[in-house]
Structures are given as structure tokens and as C-alpha cells.
């Protein structure tokens, strides 16, 4: 990383936003921690070296914003078991290396399982149309991505197609973080494109309950800086509310058509998020009306057979959960960039391009001092 990375559309504006941010944190006069919940935000922060522009007293933490990373071990096991039973699995590439209890999908593939990488649920349906084999789409992603899965489910897919849903719903996870006793998070930066679907209104009850401000921000470096200025202003003024700092993409009510489809197909149920906690209403499962497309009802999936083996030793040392809860950083993990690298990930946060550990591995997440003069 070097200063050349800082390619801002408008460097002057970036500088003045950084100065405003510094002034606001100064006004508060103590360290402030805020959390964003989006892999793309972390990528932009790391890629454009934004942490070096943040005031020293402002800690911007990445929360559980990587859907692949919070896919729980037993969910991966379900995919592995199905694949082992001869079902062909179609899934996003990031899912292949996510560790299960004893193996990942990629290990299953090495043992002969048929796994297709797709970039869209529609591509999984296309595969099913061209074959007699059973195809299970192992679906992951937050609500934005779940809507696309819902769209193929209601479009009368072929009989040999079904969905193993590991979709997650982000608002309840914010509640969990807000309620963690050790959490110091004083405000949230919500992801622009997820809010495109849900609208900003979804955060209003959260703000009401926890008295923590939420600002919806875009992905441009300038959008992120502007979003943080809004957020820290609300913290300083002690006026928690929802602010839409990304109006060019997000409205208060969101995409109603998409919301209707999402809740027509899915219902929220509680479940564990890897490393985090049990998240009430955090998992999206198919409703009874779509039981015929639900892999969990179509097949008997017995994952307990996998659990006779003890989990790999190293995985016990993974602190992904603490990282996503904002309590620790990747560099606090003894395995980071040693035993745990993207080629041989120990924890799920090193797998996905949206995982904090992978992002810090790629770009380096610690403040980049060479670029500090930009902030002055």
C-alpha cells in the first residue's frame, strides 16, 4: 500500500471530510467506535487506505458483513453431505473453501463430488434444465441476494432443482452486536445496496430500541467518509436517528416489489451465525408453500455422521467471531498470515473476498502512515 492508492475523484473534498471527521471526534473528546456491516465497505476502506484518514480516536470496525463468513459449520456440512450423496451442487465460488466440520465443499469436490460454481441463481436453474441430475443451489448472501433466489423459486424451476438456503438477514445481527455487553459500538454504517431493497425505514425500530444512530452509506471512498461524518455528528449531538447518506440509491421505503417477493418465499428463523451467536430471525428459510423447492425437505440430510470426527485443532484458535463482533482485529489472531492464508484458510473470514481477514491480508488493514499527510 502506498499513497498512490488514494485515487479520489475529488481529493479536496476527501481532505475536507477527513478534517471535519477529526474535528467531530475531537469534540467528543474520547475514543469512539462505529461499525459497518458490509464486506464491500471494508474492501473500499482497505483498498483506498481510508483508515489512514480516520482520526486516531475513531475506530471503524467491520461487523458481520460477510454472508459467507457467517455461514455456520453445520450449514456447510449439509452441502457436503448432499454432495457426498451424489447430488450435484451449484453455489457461489466463495462457498467452496468455507470449512465445515471435517471438510469443505472443495474437499468434497476433490473426493469426486460434482460442484458447479455459479454467479447467479438463474445459472443454477439453467444447469438443472439441461440435465436429469438433481441440482441443489446452495444459496448464500444477505437479503439483497436472497431476493434473486426468491425470484427463481417463484418462476417455476424444473423438478430436479431445489434450494439449500443459507441466506441471512442482517438487521437482527445488528441487534445482537448492540446487545453484546462488551461491545463499544456507538453507531452503525449500513450498506447502501442492501438498503436499496429494504429501505432505510427498516432501521427505525432498531434506533428506537438501542438509541444508536444508523447511517446508510454508499461504497465510494467519498460516500464512506461522508457517511462517517453524518454518523459521528449524530453521536456527538446525542441524537440517534436514521440518516440516508446515499439517497441516489436508497429510499425510505426501499424496493417494495422485492420485499414482497422476499417475504413471500422466505421466513426468518433463528439460527447460529458462525462465530457470532444465535441470531433470532437471522436465517432465511423457505416457506411451506415452497417445500417442493426446499432441499431440506426434499432430501434427508444427516449431518451427524460427519461429527464423529473431532474438529481440526487449528480451527479452535480462529477468532473470526470476535473480529466480526468488533472486539478484536485480524492481527490479534496468532494464525493470521501464518497458518491461515487465503489458499489454506483456517476460518471463514479468510475465505471470502468480503471476509475481514482476507481483506486485511490483501490490502493490509492497519493504518497506512505514508498517506497520513492527506488527512492533515
Amino acid at each position, binding site marked *: 500500500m502506498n499513497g498512490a492508492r488514494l485515487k479520489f475523484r475529488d481529493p479536496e473534498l476527501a481532505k475536507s471530510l477527513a478534517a471535519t471527521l477529526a474535528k467531530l471526534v475531537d469534540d467528543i473528546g474520547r475514543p469512539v467506535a462505529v461499525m459497518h456491516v458490509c464486506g464491500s465497505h471494508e*474492501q473500499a476502506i482497505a483498498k483506498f487506505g481510508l483508515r489512514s484518514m480516520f482520526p486516531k480516536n475513531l475506530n471503524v470496525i467491520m461487523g458481520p458483513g460477510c454472508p459467507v463468513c457467517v455461514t455456520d459449520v453445520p450449514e456447510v456440512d449439509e452441502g457436503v453431505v448432499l454432495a457426498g450423496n451424489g447430488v450435484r451442487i451449484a453455489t457461489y465460488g466463495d462457498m467452496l473453501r468455507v470449512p465445515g466440520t471435517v471438510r469443505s465443499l472443495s474437499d468434497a469436490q476433490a473426493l469426486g463430488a460434482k460442484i458447479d460454481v455459479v454467479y447467479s441463481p438463474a445459472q443454477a436453474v439453467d444447469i438443472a434444465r439441461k440435465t436429469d441430475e438433481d441440482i441443489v443451489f446452495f444459496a448464500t448472501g444477505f437479503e*439483497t441476494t436472497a431476493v434473486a433466489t426468491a425470484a427463481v423459486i417463484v418462476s417455476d424451476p424444473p423438478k430436479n432443482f431445489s434450494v439449500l438456503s443459507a441466506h441471512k438477514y442482517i438487521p437482527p445481527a445488528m441487534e445482537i452486536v448492540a446487545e453484546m455487553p462488551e461491545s463499544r459500538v456507538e453507531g452503525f454504517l449500513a450498506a447502501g445496496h442492501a438498503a436499496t431493497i429494504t429501505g432505510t425505514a427498516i432501521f427505525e425500530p432498531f434506533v428506537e430500541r438501542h438509541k444508536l444512530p444508523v447511517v446508510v452509506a454508499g461504497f465510494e471512498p467519498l460516500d464512506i467518509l461522508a457517511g462517517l461524518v453524518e454518523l459521528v455528528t449524530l453521536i456527538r449531538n446525542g441524537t440517534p436517528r436514521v440518516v440516508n447518506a446515499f439517497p441516489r440509491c436508497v429510499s425510505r421505503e426501499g424496493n417494495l416489489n422485492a420485499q414482497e417477493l422476499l417475504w413471500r418465499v422466505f421466513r426468518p428463523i433463528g439460527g447460529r451465525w458462525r462465530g457470532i451467536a444465535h441470531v433470532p430471525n437471522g436465517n432465511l428459510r423457505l416457506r411451506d408453500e415452497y417445500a417442493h423447492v426446499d432441499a431440506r425437505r426434499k432430501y434427508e440430510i444427516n449431518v451427524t455422521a460427519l461429527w464423529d470426527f473431532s474438529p481440526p485443532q487449528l480451527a479452535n484458535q480462529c477468532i473470526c467471531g470476535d473480529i466480526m463482533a468488533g472486539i478484536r482485529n485480524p492481527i490479534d489472531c496468532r494464525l493470521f498470515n501464518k497458518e491461515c492464508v487465503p489458499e489454506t484458510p483456517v476460518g471463514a473470514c479468510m475465505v471470502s473476498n468480503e471476509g475481514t481477514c482476507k481483506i486485511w491480508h490483501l490490502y493490509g488493514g492497519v493504518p497506512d502512515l505514508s498517506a497520513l499527510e492527506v488527512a492533515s
Partner: protein
Amino acid sequence: MCLGVPGRVIEINGSMATVDFWGVRRQVNLDIVDEPVKPGDYILNHVGFAIRRIPEESIAETLSLYETLMKEAEDDAMAADVRAEIAGAGRVS
């Protein structure tokens, strides 16, 4: 994974649109888009589905980040996500 990628609508055929992403033409599903779309509009594509019609006045701003990213190396995480989003749209047959 929710980054999405903007593209320009060339042609519409039922619920599918042919969309241009920096010279690459792909098929994007319009089932869940928030507003009616016509040729010439820009949409935000996520895993093969248009999730938003980008308002006229914010097209330039939206494109600029992606233009920076498209110039990045293959192994850049954000660039890889953008390419995956383009690959998520169907091939034009």
C-alpha cells in the same frame, strides 16, 4: 457480494434485458427492479437481477467508482467482485 454493477440497457425482451457492461453484453432479469426500465436506462445488476434503476442524475457518480475498479488487476478483491457480478448476468445467446 452486494456490490452490484451498473450497466446500460440496450434492449428489453419480456422480463429480460440486454445490458451493456463496458462493452460486454449480458442478459439481466428485470423481475425485481424497483421501477420500469426502458432502453438507455442504467440499472444496478446483482447476481443476474436488476435491483435498481439508477436515476439519471446519479449515473455519472455511480459509474466513476466502477471505472476505477475495472482498471484494477485480476486479483484485486473489489475488481473480482465486479467481474463476478458481470458474470452473474446471463450470456446473450
